């Protein structure tokens, strides 16, 4: 049970919890948190598995760094979208709203096409 395997198993556990949370939770922000949990779990596994006969292997380190950058960008985009969505429809979950609470502006046939 080298320390590397320990980290890998911790990573896997994190991924499991994150995935469970991602699927079960309805609130969008909670979903986002669960996503970040899975992300860090994956990065932990990558670091954990990367021990090559003793010395640290530079390649996975670089990859994990890139992965973290991408994860942050994605989370930022998600937060912006959720905020805008809440601002427009007052909904915090992805469920189809039964009644349209916010009446959109009057229907107008404009240049850029029907009000999709």
């Amino acid at each position: 049970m080298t320390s590397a395997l320990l980290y890998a198993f911790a990573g896997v556990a994190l991924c499991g919890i994150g995935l469970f949370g991602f699927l079960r939770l309805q609130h969008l922000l909670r979903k986002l948190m669960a996503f970040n949990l899975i992300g860090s779990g994956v990065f932990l596994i990558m670091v954990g598995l990367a021990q090559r006969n003793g010395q640290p292997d530079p390649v996975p380190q670089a990859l994990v760094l890139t992965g973290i950058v991408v994860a942050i960008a994605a989370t930022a985009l998600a937060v912006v979208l959720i905020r805008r969505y809440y601002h427009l429809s007052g909904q915090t979950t992805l469920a189809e709203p039964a009644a349209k609470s916010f009446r959109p502006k009057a229907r107008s046939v404009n240049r850029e096409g029907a009000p999709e």
Partner: protein
Amino acid sequence: MTLWLMAGLLFTPLAWAVLTLLLDFSKGRVVTWLGILVQVLVSLGLWAAVASDGGFLYLLGGWQAPLGIELRVDGLAVTFVLLTALVAAACGWHASIYLDPGKPWHRYFWPLFWFLWAGLNAVWLGGDLFNLYVGLELISLAAVGLVALGGQADALRAAIRYLMAALLGSLAYLLGVALIYGQFGTLSLAGVTELINSGDVQSGLTFPLILMLLGLALKTALFPMHGWLPPAHGIAKSPVSALLSALVVKASFYIAARLWLDLGGDLGGYALAQLIGVLGSLAVIWGSWLAFRQAKLKQVVAYSSVAQIGYLFLLFPLTWGVTDAISQQAQQGITLQVVSHALAKAAMFLAAGNLIMSVGSNRVDALAGVSRFLPFSLFSFGLAGVSLMGLPPTGGFAAKWLLLQASLASGQWWWLGVLLAGGLLSAAYVFRVYRASFIEATDTDQFYHPSRSLEVIPMILALMSLGLGLVAEPVLSVMSLPFEGASQ
């Protein structure tokens, strides 16, 4: 010469993305036209180069693997690059006229458009697994941005659902890459295949492959996991949904196909291949059935994408455990299917956009009488529909013919049923739209006439998809050119 081509291919999109970020929509449009011209010429040049002297391996900036980015430029990749160039050019041109420059949000359309294009090129040419991940992420984020652009609440909901699905898929893929790297110590696809061939593979390696395929299937919206695609593609603006359906969905499939062709032979099992095939067939049946029942025109076309994607996944069973000739035939069939579907679906979405803009409502039965008012767009919608149905002389038919032959030769006759039934079901929902448009309606005065060039673009795409059937032979001969050093 190839240096300039490669530079042009990868860096122009990024440069243009940054440039258009600084300009507003109308000035950005002019810059984009120039950029599109350059991209198309470069893609054509690359295609010609590969066609004349075969594929090659290109190390970006001269850095050696494993740290440097290694680009694999073979026939398949170049065909997809050219396809992207054509479809993106058409969608860009259409968007520049279709989108209303006044809207504040549309200012950010061009940067996202160019980021998407760069991501696509990165995926086509990507040689190692991690770079493919980065390309994939770039595409997803750009696509989500495009879907959410300037939309109302339901567009945002679709964007968020799309984002969640995409991120989940990428993470699963990343996990798979991590496990593969843990096992083999290298990330380049070519390297992994050499190690497998040298025979020291241990058991238990199918799990990473399954994980990666699962992630990619989620991003390609294969049958059980297709929930996010119809709202996203249906609600986005027409040029955006054309780009999404034609290209973005194909990127993740392209990676899955690459993995399967290189690793699937040894790691994947017969059961896995058949399972994916069955999922594909269910996608064809279920997608077509739902497309037939949709009330809105763009939803019909979106669900049709779900159905047509089902065909692509027939590649897995048809190339597993079969002779090289049959696998080659299946690959040719699937490539033709991808190319013709991309062209036809783009044409269909753009034409649908025109129809909706002129009729003023996006319901199918509001199309009555449009055949007299807007015959050109309707005709291109029809031609694209013919290609989706796989009726001669379109590219779709050539693809269906090759798949028929491959499944017959490989003895898996049950795929024949799927192919033929799929054709008939797609005929069902395409002819439902024809029916609606042929109904004679007298009150066509309040229709709005879109500008002439808006109607020409879908017609060009539809004709290319039609003509693909006739020129299938040269396209396929270039597609199957391997790049040196690869154990094809």
